[in-house]
């Protein structure tokens, strides 16, 4: 494995950027066909109610067309995300609510008119009568028998329950019984959402004659949606065409079947005209999939020297009202449970997970799925343990973190860490943080200074085991076509388009190296399922591994064909030839060469010069073959100042050490890490979808739902370690590592600061109010009103609960 020798490894400028910078990108709302109609939705204003009656007569009088469930249900098969996990139960989802509404923002009617403004006006005129039902809001209370049910037919609000970890449950009890120190934490992370800057949107065009549906859509998984839409709408898969050009961010949120998107397609089918629906921000905060709604109790057992001997966790995941199709509502909870042991030697681990159904928008995957919560809890435990056994937090980690000679290592939760630099990442992080540098400024400002570290592993590029093998239309491999044009330029067709990660650039870099044609003569295309090879979309930090792996395979095949043709033309043996920078030459004799363009010309137009048995098609589809998963790893460190008078937390330094194997384009990887850290900081300090006791969403604008802005973040200092993975290119995924570790590093830094006053915070986001309360309570100044901290589950006894084997996951 050569690490970097060619285009791979270079900080090449992204080929995607010029058209966007010039304002010529094409996002969903930038395309309007003739005769296009526009849709708006009537959405539920309440969390839980029976729909008594719907009166659309005024809207119809105003010239709009209104469809309700009664109109669309005959066109659509209901769906739900039921992976083959034992016992997983969920209610049906339909394009429009039928009978009952189950969360604020659930679509009830679609209103179609000549313009979006007219559709919105008409939607105001639709009168829906609701009979309100008690809302199921608290996920722990939801699991108690006898309460209101979100889906009556399920008989309970428990979607899924399982135990994960070491097979021998007594091993954990024994470890805790022997421990010198036991530390327990009870923590929660708040429901938040991806908040892609481009809202969701869809432009559906149905051709009733050909029975073909063309869908321009803001998604990260066009081929998956092609299959899902065909299945739901009763069309042939080759009659459903998904188009995506630019996608303005997705982060896991645009990988699902959404009712409003299906309803827009169904409306186009009923009307025989193009229908466009572009989401507004209130709709996105109400109806995009949400994430990170986890409550965790966890305990760690240590020997006297700080060695970890046991770990247990009790997790309740708030899954919301529906199990999204096809990924389901359980992935996040499962990963909170199974990632928790992290890069540490944990000999015995038991974890109990329950996923509750509540009257909130569906919970699904969001960048780093479950990892941020798992890492937060583990790293908070380690900091508390370090305090308990009076060890430096870095030293405690050092004593427990995996060493290179222990790899591959199977974690107590069953994950196989294939490669990595766990110990080295920690050491490099510690070297780069200098808290002393910040002490004077903190003193001057009168703030409490704190430092926090967090080490992590992350699932990347998972194989078919997690979804496909469990019945979902989500595959593990991707196809990429590489072809050489008659003039010697190359075209690459990607099965998986990106949403800003620079996949076109990285694919071109990889193809340049494996084909021998320079980067700037390679054109990369994606985004039309009718003409592109099959790909399963961007998820779980997979594209660099899977898509690039497939591109390399295709490039190698085409190169072999070019070499065979060149060998004939040059009358040498193909094995003596190499292709460098667009020229085929005899290895060791660089003067004897012909241009790739000449080979391509012969292969296209002068095939009479070639023997009959030579393959002349300079095009091939490559596929990715590799291990079922590869884990990246690294460490995060944050330095914060906490202002005791305002409760505000300011991050003054941030360091990330990251090992994602071979770097295809370091600038792109850095961008992924910084963006991920920003989202992690958002979760730690700012972001919370606030549902009140009635299930009403109080945060439905970007004034209430706070996102990190430029002043909220410092410059993020990044160190790379390149430990090759056992995948064909030695690459690992990198897209989620930033988001995975940041909440833990920031949280530990805040608690490190607060510990100087004997205080701690346990719930995210760490709002000023929570900081002030913690400081006051530590000083025995009790607040009269109740804290806003959510309840955390109590321990349950492991009796005869179901148990699941744990393979790969969604990163």
């Amino acid at each position, binding site marked *: 494995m050569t690490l970097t020798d060619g285009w791979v490894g270079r900080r090449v*400028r*992204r080929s*995607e*950027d*010029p058209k*966007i*910078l*010039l*304002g*010529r*990108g*094409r*996002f969903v*709302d*930038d395309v*309007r066909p003739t005769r296009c109609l526009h849709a708006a939705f009537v959405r539920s204003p309440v969390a839980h109610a029976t729909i008594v009656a719907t009166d659309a007569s005024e809207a119809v009088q105003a010239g709009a067309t209104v469809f309700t469930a009664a109109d669309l249900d005959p066109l659509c098969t209901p769906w739900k995300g039921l992976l083959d996990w034992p016992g997983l139960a969920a209610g049906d989802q339909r394009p429009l609510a039928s009978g009952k509404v189950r969360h604020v923002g659930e679509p009830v009617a679609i209103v179609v008119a000549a313009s979006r*403004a007219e559709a919105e006006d008409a939607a105001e005129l639709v009168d829906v009568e609701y009979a309100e039902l008690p809302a199921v809001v608290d996920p722990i209370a939801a699991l108690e028998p006898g309460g209101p049910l979100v889906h009556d037919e399920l008989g309970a609000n428990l979607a899924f329950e399982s135990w994960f970890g070491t097979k021998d449950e007594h091993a954990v009890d024994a470890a805790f019984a022997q421990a010198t120190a036991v530390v327990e934490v009870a923590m929660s992370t708040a429901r938040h959402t*991806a*908040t*892609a*800057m*481009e*809202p969701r949107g869809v432009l559906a065009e149905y051709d009733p004659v050909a029975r073909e549906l063309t869908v321009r859509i803001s998604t990260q998984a066009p081929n998956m949606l092609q299959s899902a839409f065909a299945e739901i709408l009763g069309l042939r898969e080759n009659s459903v065409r998904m188009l995506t050009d*630019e*996608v*303005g*961010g997705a*982060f896991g949120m645009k990988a699902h079947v959404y009712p409003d998107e299906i309803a827009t397609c169904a409306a186009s089918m009923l009307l025989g005209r193009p229908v466009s629906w572009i989401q*507004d*921000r209130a709709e996105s905060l109400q109806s995009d999939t949400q994430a990170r709604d986890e409550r965790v109790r966890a305990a760690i057992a240590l020997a006297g020297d700080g060695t970890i001997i046991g770990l247990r966790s009790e997790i309740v995941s708030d899954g919301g009202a529906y199990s999204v199709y096809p990924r389901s509502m359980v992935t996040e909870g499962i990963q909170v449970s199974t990632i928790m042991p992290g890069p540490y030697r944990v000999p015995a681990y038991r974890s109990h997970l329950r996923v509750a159904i509540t009257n909130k928008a569906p919970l699904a995957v969001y960048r780093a799925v479950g990892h941020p919560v798992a890492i937060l809890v583990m790293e908070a435990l380690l900091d508390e343990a370090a305090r308990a056994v009076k060890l430096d937090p870095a030293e405690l980690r050092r004593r427990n973190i995996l060493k290179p000679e222990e790899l591959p290592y199977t974690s107590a939760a069953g994950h196989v860490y294939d490669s990595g630099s766990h110990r080295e990442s920690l050491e490099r992080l510690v070297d780069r943080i200098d808290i002393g540098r910040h002490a004077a400024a903190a003193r001057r400002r009168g703030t409490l200074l704190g430092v926090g570290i967090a080490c992590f592993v992350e699932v990347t590029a998972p194989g078919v085991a997690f979804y496909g093998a469990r019945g979902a239309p989500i595959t593990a491999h991707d196809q990429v076509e590489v072809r050489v044009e008659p003039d010697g330029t190359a075209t690459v067709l990607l099965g998986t388009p990106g*949403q*800003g*990660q*620079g996949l076109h650039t990285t694919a071109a870099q990889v193809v340049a190296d494996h084909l021998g044609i320079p980067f700037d003569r390679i054109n990369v295309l994606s985004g039309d399922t009718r003409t592109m090879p099959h790909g399963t979309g961007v998820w779980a930090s997979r594209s660099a591994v899977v898509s690039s792996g497939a591109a390399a395979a295709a490039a190698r095949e085409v190169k072999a064909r070019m070499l065979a043709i060149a060998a004939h033309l040059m009358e040498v043996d193909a094995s003596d030839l190499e292709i460098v920078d667009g020229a085929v030459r005899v290895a060791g004799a660089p003067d004897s060469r012909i241009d790739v363009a000449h080979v391509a010309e012969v292969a296209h137009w002068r095939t009479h010069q070639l023997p009959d048995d030579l393959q002349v098609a300079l095009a091939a589809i490559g596929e990715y073959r590799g291990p079922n998963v590869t884990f990246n790893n690294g460490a995060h460190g944050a330095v914060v100042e906490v202002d005791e008078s305002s409760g505000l937390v300011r991050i003054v330094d941030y360091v990330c050490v990251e090992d994602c194997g071979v770097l295809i384009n370091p*600038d*792109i990887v850095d*961008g992924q890490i*910084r*963006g*991920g*850290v*920003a*989202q992690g900081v958002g979760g730690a300090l700012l972001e919370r979808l606030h549902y009140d006791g009635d299930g009403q969403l109080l945060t439905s*604008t*970007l*004034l209430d739902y706070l*996102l990190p*802005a*430029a*002043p909220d*973040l410092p*410059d*993020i200092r990044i160190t790379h370690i390149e430990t090759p993975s056992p995948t064909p290119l030695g690459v690992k995924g990198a897209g989620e590592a*930033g988001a995975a570790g940041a909440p833990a590093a920031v949280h530990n830094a805040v608690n490190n600061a607060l510990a100087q006053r004997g205080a701690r915070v346990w719930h995210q986001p760490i709002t000023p109010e929570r900081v002030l309360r913690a400081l006051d309570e530590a000083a025995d100044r009790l607040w009269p009103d109740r804290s806003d901290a959510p309840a955390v589950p109590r321990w349950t006894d492991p009796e005869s609960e179901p148990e699941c084997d744990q393979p790969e996951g969604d990163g």
Partner: protein
Amino acid sequence: MRDTHEPAPVTARVNGRTESAAVAPRTTLADYLRHGLGLTGTHLGCEHGVCGACTVLLDGNPVRSCLTLAVQAHGREVRTVEGLAAPDGTMHPLQERFWRHQALQCGFCTPGFLMAALAAVDEEPDMSRDRIRERLSGNVCRCTGYQPIVDAVEGFSADRAAEHAGEDR
């Protein structure tokens, strides 16, 4: 009183061209630019004035085109992202800097940042990194973590200062 839906005339200079149209008075400047004139480079991320994606320059000042009515642009000068590059397509130096520093990923926020940053640098040619962060705090980027945007704006300011120093000599 005029009917609120009766089209009103708007004549504005948009990226150096005079454009005239009759638009419903409630039409936002963003919708007029995007769908009336086909200038879809200006993006809408929130439509309630928080994200800054829709920022354009109105008589040189940054405005949120989602909160500005098209009729308010009457008789005024509008500059959008499409108006930054030279007529032959050469990128504006700020666009160049964004490209060089990879100050965009999905690029949805980018037009708004370009316009806001241009106005900021015009007003304050010599901003510190912290000051750049403050000046751009009205624009949200969900992808980059802002650092490369700050790099790009810092670099652009330095280029400009160097250019002006050259001119003064």
